[in-house]
Structure formats: C-alpha cells, structure tokens
C-alpha cells in the first residue's frame, strides 16, 4: 500500500533520515520503534509532506507522493494523528470531529456520510459523545488522545498514522487505545504506529522496524523483532551497530 525507498529527509540542511526504506501492506499494523531523536516523527511528517525530502521514493497505492502537498496526501487517504495530539484546544470536541471530516465534506451526500462516520467514531469512543460541546483542551490526556484518534478516523482514512499515541498516558489507557487499533485492523484499516514503547507496539504489529539515529537498524515480524538485539542497542544508543 505504502512503499518508501531510500528516503532522505532533513531540516535546513541537517539530515534526520538517511536512506530509510519501509513497506506497509494493506490491512496490517506496522510499528516503527526507536529512542528519542531516532527520526520516527520525521518519517511520519515526511509521509504527510511536512518535511522536505531531498531524495528517495514514496508511493501510495502505486502513486508517487513525493511531490504532493500536505492537503493532497490527506485527500488520498493518508491521515496522521500527530505527536502530542495537537487538538484545536479552544474548539469543542464536536468541532474537532467536524474538522477531521474535512476530507469528505462538501462531496455529494456527505451529510449522510458524516452521520455514519460520527456514529462509528462515537461507537468506538462513547466518552466523546458526553463531551461533544466541551472545549477539547479542557479534557483529560486520555480523552484528548481518543479525540485525536477519533478526529483522524472521521476522514475515513486508508492509512492511519499514529505518532506516539501512548505519550503521557497511564498504561491502562494505552492498552485501551491499542485494543482499539486491533479492532480497526479487523475493520480492514491499515495502520502505521510509531512508538517509543517498543515492546507493546511490536506485540501488536504484523511487521516492525527499529530505528536509531535516522536509520532503520532492524526489521521483521513483530514478535521476532522484540527479541532482536538491535532493539537494545537502539535504546542504549550504540549507533555503530547494525543487526539487520
């Protein structure tokens, strides 16, 4: 579904991704794990076209997306839940959900589609229903993360990318969110999950990648990868070693 080959990305000349290659098959969860500064967010933002990518190849459903603008990537169905949730804090829960629906809004029959999406999202996160008119910034961290995921789901994405959804959340809430991701996979959604919490993220994943200082250090099926020595090297910060 998504194929990335030898991607380089950077900020004002300094390279944050070096020759990264990642593949995501339809209907799977792919996890990318790594320590702080490994380049995980950079990868997600490169796919969303928020980061400049001087070289490499990226195709989504066979279509080259290297030259697209951020809004066009969303239009294709690649939707991001950004690191730190990034809700529109002064706007209400419902307004945030409406904004998530922007991709599908304005098409013919979109009122009906909106209702269906809303029912689906509120079915997954019943709490959001009670909070519909509350300013999103005043909710608890867990509720905010659910809204961030719900907002992205309003767009009916083909590929859902989540950047550290566990950030700052209690383990129980993290489990809840990961359970929802499994449910979404059963509904046929394709998911790219970026996490620091490697163990849980890899347990969930069909396939995983370990990143360190801007490179992919190891890849493989989720469970196998969680035993890979590269994982420990990545977190202990020995960039010289490669296990792949």
């Amino acid at each position, binding site marked *: 579904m998504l194929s990335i080959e030898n991607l380089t990305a950077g900020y004002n000349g300094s390279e944050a991704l070096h020759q990264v290659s990642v593949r995501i098959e339809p209907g799977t969860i792919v996890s990318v794990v790594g320590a702080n500064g490994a380049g995980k967010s950079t990868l997600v933002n490169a796919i*969303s076209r*928020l980061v400049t990518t001087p070289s490499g190849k990226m195709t989504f459903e066979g279509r080259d997306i290297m030259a697209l*603008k*951020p*809004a066009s990537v*969303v*239009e294709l169905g690649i*939707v*991001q839940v*950004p690191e730190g949730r*990034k809700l*529109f*804090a*002064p*706007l209400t829960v419902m*307004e945030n959900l*409406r*904004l*998530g629906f*922007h*991709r599908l*809004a*304005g098409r013919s029959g979109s009122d009906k589609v909106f209702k269906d999406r809303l029912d689906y999202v509120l079915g997954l996160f019943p709490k959001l229903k009670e909070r519909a008119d509350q300013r999103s910034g005043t909710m608890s961290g867990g509720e905010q993360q659910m809204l961030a995921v719900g*907002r992205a789901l309003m*767009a009916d994405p083909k590929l859902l990318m989540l950047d550290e959804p566990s950030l700052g959340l209690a383990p129980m809430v993290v489990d809840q969110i990961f359970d929802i991701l499994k449910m979404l996979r059963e509904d046929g959604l394709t998911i790219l999950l970026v996490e620091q919490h490697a163990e849980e993220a890899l347990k969930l994943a069909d396939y995983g990648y370990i990143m360190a200082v801007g490179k992919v250090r190891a890849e493989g099926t989720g469970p196998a990868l969680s035993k890979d020595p590269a994982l420990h090297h990545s977190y202990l910060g020995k960039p010289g070693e490669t296990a792949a």
Partner: protein
Amino acid sequence: MEKLSYLILSGVTNGSVYGLIGLSLSIIYGSSRVINFAQGDFVMLGALSAIMFVTTFNLPWFIAIPGVIGVVMLTALALNYGVYRPMVRRKAPPLTIMMGTLGASIMIYGIGLLVWGPDQKFVPALLSLKPLIVGPLITNPQQLAIIATFAAFLVLTWYILYRTRFGLSIRATGVDPKVALLMGIRSERIVLFSFLFSATVSGIAGVLVGPLLGGQIGMGLMLIVKGFLAAILGGLGSPFAAAAGGIAIGMMEALMAGYGTSLYAEPAIFMLILLVLFVRPYGLLGDYEAERR
C-alpha cells in the same frame, strides 16, 4: 444632553469606521499572522473609485457599488498573488511579508496618485447628509448607514465564522495552521478568502466615510493607524474584539474633542492604550484568544 448625544453619535460613527478596519486587519492576521499595511489603501480605493464611478462616469449607485467592490477585490487578488504567495513560497516569516504589504501600500498609493492626483476631492454621498431627527438624536442617513453597515458586517463575520464549515476551517487555521494542514485544509484558500473579504469590508467603509472625510489619496494612512489601534486595544486575535476597540477609540476621540480639545485627543488616546496594554497585554477582550495559543 443634546451635546452629549451628538458626541456619542459621532463617536459611534467614526468608531464604526475604525472598527471595520480593525475587523479587516484582524481577519487577515487570524489566517496568516500578517498585519496588512495596505489595508488603509483599500479604504482609499473605496472612496476614490466611488468618485470615479459616480461622478466621473456618472453611473448609478447600484452599478457603482459592485464596481467599487470589483476594484478592491482585484487589488486584493494582486496583493495575494503578487506579494503574499511568492513570499510564503520562499518561506518568508510574517514580519517580512508585512514589509511586503508596506511596499504594496506604497505602490498602490503611487498608482492612485497617477490616477486621481493629490487633491482632496468631494465624494458623493450614497445617502443624504441632511439632518434627520430620530427622537432626541440629530443625525443623518449617511451616519446611520455607516453604523448599520458596521453592524451588518459584524453579523456577517460572525455567521461565516461560527455557522459555516468554511468558517470552522478559518478558525482552525487561526488556532494552528500546521495541524489544519493535517486535516487537509488548504490554508492558501483561507488566506485568499481573508484578503478578499477584508478588502471588501474596507472598500465599503471607504465609500461610506468618504463624504464625511473627503476623498484624498493619503486618507488611508490616518485610517489604518486608527484601525490598527482599534485592533490592538480590543485584541487583534478576534475580529469582534478589534471591532469593539474601534468603537472605544471613536468614543474617546469624540468625547475628548467635545469636552476638552481635539488637540489633546490623540496623545490622550495613545496614553490610554498604553495603560490598557500594561494591564492587559493582549487587549481589552483579547484574553480569550491569547489563551488559545
């Protein structure tokens, strides 16, 4: 009593004009973080192109008004595509783009000078300037039209921002343009709309205030200063706060001129604004917006 009601009315009238300009500035600022220095020139273009259509070409108002809107919209398009976008494409920060709008303002002034010359001109009034007695108030239809237009634009702005899907996108872009992009919102469209809308608001303000101030190529400068003060005093982050700031400044001016001397009106207003900003750095009503960021 009669004097007071007269002063209040003239304060509200001038305040409506400042408020319209403050609202225009705030709308562009909200979507792009740029203060458009050329905003006063839209007011000037409104007044002078009204002279052109009505006096020079002798056209009726129902053609002249769309004509005026056409002139300011074309200018807004030129500003958007000729200054704003090329600078954004080169990743210019808002401050640099502001300098770009200042340059554009000087260019519009120069072109206006070639077309209309430097002299003050009589601007035909859309409505009668004859006194009109409404209860205890002595006013005139033009004055009432200015106040009504101000009210109408406030309602229209509120409606667009809070009752339409496009308005929701505008507010989201104001809160966080980068995250708005992640929703698939095309921020350049939002900015284009804000230029066109605020140019129309300012152009119409020019048509209405022209007969009271006289049409002169430099009239934009005084008005944009007042409109900017209005926005700062009320709170730049919200069009409604900026509009309220305009009324506050208009009232202060009128009362100061009526009971003191107009000589001190301006320094007194500046001092008052400074004092307000010491206590409320985001403007009188601006706290809500400051909290948003």
